[in-house]
């Protein structure tokens, strides 16, 4: 049977990456002073699985490479090898190398052989550094070759002396009592022998106890077997391979064939002895009163053997073809793959919901069939149910796209490990809320900003150990990476216990760079926000770790592109917290629809603080800066929507008639002046950029129930836009 193995490759690759991640995490967790055997075991298992799979699926270079890693890890596991930091670093490097190899294979690119060779050399050096303690592998290999070689020679010689009908093997097989308890069954083995050649068997039952004493689970019979035919020894040996140690076995070639060449002298001498012995036992047998039974038994066995249809040597061929077809198809599918792994319980929930929708639909169908006005109530009820189910269904579908944020977080221990050792700082990374779920597309896009922020915390936030001690803090700094849900958002916080941000230093720097003028008075928050300005960097000297200060504005832009925002709070001397708020999904949002003239716009519900009605008199006009109004000691700028979008104002577009929607974007409040509030609804976001082009102040569009298109407002964008 040939099965196209490529259909399993995708799964295998994914598994490899998971395995590598587990190995990496394990390696980072290893404390050389206090080795946890379970951690080593996990790392070993990762290498072991990758090796097994890559061998099976034909990626021999991966298999060879992991083999060395496995050997090294095996020795660590058995305590034969000291776990050193050097070894850990080499293994970490190998994990990286392996990851590259596998992604190259996955993308059908050339594997970087020189890199592989280098890591192989590193591993070899580490492995052979204590050469004395590593004899097993080579030893085993040689043992195997010793076993196979003679049999090959014998098979060769038997081939040369073909047509010799007399050739065959005589097998004395004497199972121990417990043979059956391993699930091995002599009958099956005899059947296999009978496939090799003509088999005759003789059962010796003199050791079978009387019925009263007999334990049916024990094997009391031994056999003398003869297989005739041109059969290589190793094929016979293979059949008895599994019962080695559970029986006494003696395999001898049957006479006339000259097996002089290589066969050791012992085996030449033995046949004679053996024949004598069997003659002796056979001679004894007739005296046994149970002889008739022997014959019956024997007959049964041989009948069995004959009755078994020559196991399908031709039959499998047809299924073969079918399998090939199938696998060809699956290959096509695999190639498209950007796959996602989904918890089965989520799919079950989905199927359940679909069932509910179908039921509701058929119920509505029934109502509609002979509709009379008295069925209106029923119809309304049905529609309400449909609405509920659709919402649940939608939720379930969205859930399928949700991934635990550990997909992102799991990369950071390595990052922190590498960077802190480079910086000479002692830093512990704590991960909290790794199971918080977030949309797959957000997962993909949030990684880079997080890497940047964490690097910043490592580099600028946490102090050198000596400085920490001087400041009365523990030598080891802590960075906490925390994720949790709040409202319709997911919040990711990066909390460090470093020296915090110095407001005055930030301001001085910004002034020096000409980003603000020195007369400006800033709140703490505004001062922290300075780091998001393009071209701002406070590190006294630039390092290769957190770069040249070009990053933070990009980080902020990326997060805002995801519909999120970023906030900083800091306490000088105690640390900094950076909080990122992100929407749970990018595909659907809860919106407030508002009317402006004849148009409808959607304001994301999360950005709305409140909606109020004010009169013209409450407005303050500020020369050159538009209008504001006072809301509980705060002056809020007003954005007249019909003006900004150039919509024909309606009768309600006068202050006093319309409504001010107070919304927040990036910590800045603004009042969106609209004609009316229409209602809240969930809207499916359609990209405007993909269908048209980017428009300032608009984050996307959606299609309303009546088929018309409504634009979704981007509040921070609107604020920026209106300030221009």
């Amino acid at each position, binding site marked *: 049977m*040939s099965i196209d193995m490529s259909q399993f490759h995708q799964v295998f690759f994914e*598994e490899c990456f998971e395995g590598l991640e587990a190995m990496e995490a394990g390696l980072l967790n290893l404390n050389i002073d206090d080795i946890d055997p379970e951690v080593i075991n996990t790392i070993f298992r990762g290498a072991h699985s990758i090796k*097994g*799979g890559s061998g099976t699926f034909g990626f021999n270079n991966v298999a060879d490479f992991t083999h060395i890693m496995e*050997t090294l890890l095996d020795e660590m596991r058995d305590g034969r090898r000291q776990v050193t930091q050097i070894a850990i670093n080499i293994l970490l490097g190998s994990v990286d190398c392996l990851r590259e190899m596998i992604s190259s294979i996955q993308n059908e690119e050339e594997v970087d052989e020189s890199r592989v060779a280098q890591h192989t050399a590193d591993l070899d050096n580490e492995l052979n550094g204590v050469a004395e303690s590593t004899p097993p592998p080579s030893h085993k290999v040689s043992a*195997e070759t010793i076993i196979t070689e003679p049999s090959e020679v014998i098979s060769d010689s038997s081939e040369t002396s073909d047509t010799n009908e007399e050739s065959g093997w005589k097998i004395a097989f004497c199972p121990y009592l417990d043979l059956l308890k*391993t699930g091995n069954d002599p009958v099956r083995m005899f059947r296999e022998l009978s496939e090799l050649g003509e088999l005759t068997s003789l059962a010796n039952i003199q050791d079978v106890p009387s019925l009263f004493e007999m334990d049916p*689970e024990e094997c009391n019979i031994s056999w003398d077997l003869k297989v005739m035919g041109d059969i290589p020894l190793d094929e016979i040996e293979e059949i008895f391979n599994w019962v080695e140690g559970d029986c006494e076995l003696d395999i001898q070639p049957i006479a006339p064939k000259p097996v002089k060449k290589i066969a050791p002298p012992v085996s030449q001498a033995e046949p004679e002895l053996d024949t004598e012995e069997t003659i002796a036992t056979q001679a004894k047998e007739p005296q046994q009163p149970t002889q008739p039974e022997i014959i019956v038994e024997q007959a049964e066995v041989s009948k069995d053997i004959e009755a078994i249809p020559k196991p399908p040597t031709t039959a499998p061929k047809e299924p073969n073809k079918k399998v090939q077809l*199938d696998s060809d198809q699956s290959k096509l599918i695999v190639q498209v793959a950007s796959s996602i792994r989904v918890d089965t319980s989520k799919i079950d929930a989905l199927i359940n919901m679909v069932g509910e929708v179908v039921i509701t639909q058929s119920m509505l169908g029934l109502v509609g069939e002979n509709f009379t006005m008295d069925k209106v109530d029923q119809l309304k009820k049905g529609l309400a149910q449909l609405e509920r189910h659709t919402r649940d269904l939608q939720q379930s579908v969205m859930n399928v796209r949700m991934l635990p944020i550990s997909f992102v977080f799991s990369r950071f221990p390595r990052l922190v490990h590498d960077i802190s050792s480079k910086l000479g700082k002692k830093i512990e990374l704590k991960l909290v809320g790794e199971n918080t779920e977030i949309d797959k597309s957000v997962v993909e896009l949030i990684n880079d900003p997080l890497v940047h922020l964490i690097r910043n915390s490592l580099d600028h936030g946490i102090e050198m150990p000596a400085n920490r001690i001087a400041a009365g803090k523990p030598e080891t700094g802590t960075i906490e990476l925390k994720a949790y849900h709040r409202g319709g958002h997911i919040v990711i916080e990066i909390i460090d216990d470093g020296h915090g941000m110095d407001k005055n230093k930030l301001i001085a720097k910004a002034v020096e760079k000409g980003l603000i003028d020195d007369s400006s008075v800033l709140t703490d928050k505004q001062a922290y926000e300075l780091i998001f300005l393009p071209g701002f960097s406070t590190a006294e000297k630039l390092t290769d770790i957190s770069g040249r200060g070009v990053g933070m504005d990009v980080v902020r832009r990326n997060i805002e592109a995801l519909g999120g925002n970023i906030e900083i709070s800091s306490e000088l001397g105690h640390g900094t917290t950076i909080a990122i708020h992100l929407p749970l999904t990018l595909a659907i949002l809860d919106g407030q629809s508002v009317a402006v003239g004849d148009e409808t716009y959607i304001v994301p519900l999360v950005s709305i603080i409140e909606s109020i009605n004010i009169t013209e008199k409450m407005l303050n006009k500020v020369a050159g800066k538009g209008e504001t109004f006072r809301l509980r000691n705060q002056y809020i700028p007003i954005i007249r929507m019909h003006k900004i979008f150039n919509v024909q104002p309606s009768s309600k577009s006068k202050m006093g008639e319309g409504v001010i929607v107070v919304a927040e974007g990036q910590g800045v409040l603004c009042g969106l002046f609209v004609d009316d509030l229409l209602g809240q609804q969930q809207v499916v976001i359609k990209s405007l950029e993909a269908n048209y082009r980017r428009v300032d102040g608009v984050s996307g569009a959606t299609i309303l129930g009546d088929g018309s298109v409504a634009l979704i407002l981007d509040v921070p964008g609107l604020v920026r836009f209106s300030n221009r």
Partner: protein
Amino acid sequence: MASILAVDDSASMRKMVTFTLKSAGYDVEEAVDGVDALEKAQSKQFDCIITDVNMPNKDGITLIKDLRAIANYKFTPMLTLTTESGMEKKMEGKAAGATGWIVKPFDPDQLLKTLKKVLG
């Protein structure tokens, strides 16, 4: 057709084994580790168990030991999937009651051929 329980913590290997066996007409169920396998084996009688050795939660050797202790699995063929370097593992498996082993890496043909040794 004979029913087989395939136990492996690696999804790709499990899929490969399952696919191969199913296309040969066997009735196959999967388990992800020893604990899962033991549970499945107790809820249904299998004619053969094929298990990986190195697995989290419960390894293959322990699984075989546990299964052999159950009356229904006293004589059931149980095969371990093992790497060539694991001679001690083979023996350890045998001591625990394994019927035999399949050496990794293997291809579908080898798997089916080996399986024929224990299933009629």
